[in-house]
């Protein structure tokens, strides 16, 4: 329950990386919360999409990278379609995942997916999950 805000963190290189990967300006966000209130899976998230945006504004990218929420986001684009500031929030979420994935961090390990669980699942669903969540 304590954050040390430092000038050096705001707009640090990690924030710039997120902005570059997503093509979005993190500082456009004025914290209206519309992204979160429309998000269909926010009730399973540890931090909400608007909180992820806020943490990014403070430069606390690590905190978002290690959160569960970025993996729970199902890229439905509801947030992007409603953001009053025109931020493509889903792209920001994708940028967080991408940084993790490029560092080999993911939550789906294809080798560990059980055959019985997956045999009925359509290929498109499996491949999607692997592309979005295999580091």
């Amino acid at each position, binding site marked *: 329950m304590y954050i040390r805000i430092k000038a050096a963190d705001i707009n640090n290189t990690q924030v710039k990386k997120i902005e*570059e*990967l*997503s*093509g979005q300006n993190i500082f456009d966000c004025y914290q209206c919360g519309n992204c979160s209130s429309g998000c*269909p*899976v926010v*009730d*399973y998230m540890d931090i909400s999409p608007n909180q992820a945006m806020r943490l990014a504004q403070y430069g606390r990218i690590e905190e978002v990278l290690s959160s569960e929420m970025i*993996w*729970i986001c*199902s*890229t*439905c*684009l*509801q947030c*992007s*379609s409603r953001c009053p500031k025109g931020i*493509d929030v*889903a*792209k920001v979420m*994708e*940028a967080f995942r*991408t940084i993790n994935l490029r560092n080999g961090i993911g*939550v*789906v390990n294809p080798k560990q*997916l059980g055959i019985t669980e*997956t045999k*009925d*699942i*359509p*290929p*498109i*669903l*499996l*491949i*999607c*999950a692997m*592309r*979005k*969540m295999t580091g």
Partner: protein
Amino acid sequence: MKLPYYPGCTLKANARHFEKSAIQAMEKLDFQLVEMKDWVCCGTVFSMTSDDLMLQLASVRNLLRAEKQNLKELIVLCSMCYNTLKRANDFIVKDKGNLEKVNNFMYKENLTYSGKIEIYHLLSILKDRIGFSVIAEKVKKKLSALKIGAYYGCLLVRPEELAIDNFEDPSIFEDLISTLGGESLDFAYKLECCGAYQTVTKKDVSVKRVYEILNSARESGCEAIVTSCPLCAYNLDFLQKDVEEEYLDFNRIPVFYFTELMAVALGCGWDKNWSSLHFTDPEPLLREKGLI
């Protein structure tokens, strides 16, 4: 008339009835869906990272091969493939630099992609090219007594640039249902995500989504759901098993592909094999309504 179409892997696997019913229904409308040759995976999901050209390659390879086969357009049935192919196409067409890089990478294809292939969803073809009024004339068995909830999910309407209709208040699906003589009922969750690939990692997320969506449809009086996405169809239909265990007030509800309903209405009848590809078998409902 011939229409070149892109099936995608799932239409050859879990969603065989989607493809079959589409071909049959389109024949009744005097259109022949011709599968494009040498297609590969659509890429399954569009990568939204600005520098991830690698992840666009699968999509573009299909577009390039379509061009090689002298096609001008591709008709897509699966919402997911539609979304991925169309966005990938936009991504490289809007930025010449991207197009060039992708082409260079695929030099072995012996052709460079010009960016001129148009991607359409079958629903748009039905509405804009064939016209609902024309279809209405060919309906043999009106779906009169059937109360249907049109489920769009995310991929047909988001992002706004590729939405096949108004992205906040679409009606193309409902209009098709009325064309076929059915009654379409509005429900609050028709544009909400089904949980998508969370089914693989966090099934409980999808299960809750499916419960909420189907319940909302039920409460609005729907007897069946119609969709155009094999991913949604899987979640909405097959997860009903888990929903049942989790939520005691839940009642099963059949989930159709829109082409199945078209096939029935246009007089192709119901293929027994299709039933086995559903979890909640729609046959009893169709029988009850006297449609088969």
